[in-house]
């Protein structure tokens, strides 16, 4: 029957549309469902494994664990890390290779974690920072070993 079908179509159409409107109406009146976080006021606590940038750990005596072995430099797919080494005079008179500068290009880094995995002495780790915007991209090239820092005793 044409008329019955016609009315049925109109009825089911209205029903489907109204059920959709009921859902959106529910959200309009229930503000507790809102999930927005107001960013600068509310800051996220990032997960401990979150990969924000590579940093080098220093202890309170300003000593790091990097031997300058360049394992991370080799592991990096993007040439993000550049390690400059120097020859250091040991107390017993022998010369030994040591870290001079650990250059880290944050602008090239994809946070893939491969350098951290490659490091044999756990000298570097991922920090949980996430606000990396700067006005000049030169500022993204970082020197990770603190000035005047030394290799920790007993790290080979």
């Amino acid at each position, binding site marked *: 029957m044409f008329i019955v079908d016609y009315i049925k179509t109109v009825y089911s159409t209205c029903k489907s549309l109204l059920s959709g409107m009921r859902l959106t109406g529910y959200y309009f009146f229930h503000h507790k469902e*809102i999930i927005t976080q107001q960013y600068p006021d509310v800051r996220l606590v990032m997960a401990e494994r979150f990969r924000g940038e590579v940093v080098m750990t220093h202890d309170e005596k300003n000593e790091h664990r990097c031997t300058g072995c360049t394992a991370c430099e080799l592991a990096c797919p993007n040439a993000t890390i550049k390690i400059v080494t120097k020859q250091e005079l040991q107390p017993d008179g022998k010369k030994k290779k040591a870290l001079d500068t650990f250059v880290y290009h944050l602008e090239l880094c994809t946070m893939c974690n491969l350098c951290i995995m490659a490091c044999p002495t756990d000298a570097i780790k991922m920090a949980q920072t996430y606000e990396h915007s700067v006005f000049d991209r030169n500022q993204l090239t970082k020197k990770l070993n603190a000035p005047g820092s030394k290799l920790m005793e007993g790290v080979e």
Partner: protein
Amino acid sequence: MISIEHISQSLHEALSASLNSTLVLLIEMVIAGVLVIALFAVLGLVLVFMERKVSAYIQIRLGPNRVGYQGFAQTAADTLKLLIKEGLTPDGADKFLFNLAPLVVMVVAMLIMAPIAFTKGFQLWDINIGVLYVSAVSSISVIGILMAGWASNNKYSMLGAMRSGAQIVSYELSAGLSVITIVILVGSLSINDIIASQQNGWWIFKGHIPVMISFIIFVIAVTAETNRAPFDLAEAESELTAGFHTEYSGMRFAFFFLAEYVNIFVVCAIGATLFFGGWMPFHIGSWEAFNHVMDFIPGIVWFFGKIFSLIFLIMWFRWTFPRLRIDQLLNLEWKYLLPIAMFNLLLTTLMAITGFYFK
């Protein structure tokens, strides 16, 4: 009791006392013009803000909340930005029409404001064919949109304008038919008569089923006529980027934007007048005490309350439904709305003749 009617009356008397009638008319026209423009500006700010907040809450987010209290000044800030933005005119554009189009759309939106009665005795132009005037003038806005689409010399704009033309022309029909049901019941085209006839109950309640059907048709038709989602094919963002106003920027874009919201306001005002008694308070037949309490709320509050409820309904549609396709849009009009509206008109006529409605 101080009401807007008193204020306008006393202003008129004060002016007439000291000046001759031509000057009085001139000053009053200036005042009316300033009031309309001020209403426009305020409406633009309020409605845009309302749209943002409604969409935000439906979309489980907060919406603008930084500029001013709860973000209330956000639209003002945006308007300021649009004002100082450069208005580009494309090289291949028809410069004259391109610049004229936003003005046409804007002027039309302003013109429809004339016969609307905001409260008792506060009306710019008490014309005896008010309803006819509104439906006649509102069709002019399509010319502005077609102008914009054509003059932009952009294929997207052209498609958007063409869609808009087909859409507005066809939806005029069912909007007009649903308006006529009320006209038949009232027996007059004048806005004031229509409002007066709802003294003891609004038409949506008095006229039961036929008027409710025509109200639903009216809401759908005006949503389409104002190019609002789910009928926003003229600017269909994901298809035509921005449709007829793709090439507009700066203040000219703001005109289109503002005209859209003013149009919504106007059609909702018409809807409120026809179906919800305009500025008439909510009255129930012979409940004297209740009616008296309702009378204490000023008419302008009633009127704006009704308008904003309708506007909210239209916004609610927009943030719930997907967009129709152009052929479905025309199918809906010609296959569903128009036959129903015609049948409904017949029903209403019968009802009016037999007097089978609440009086």
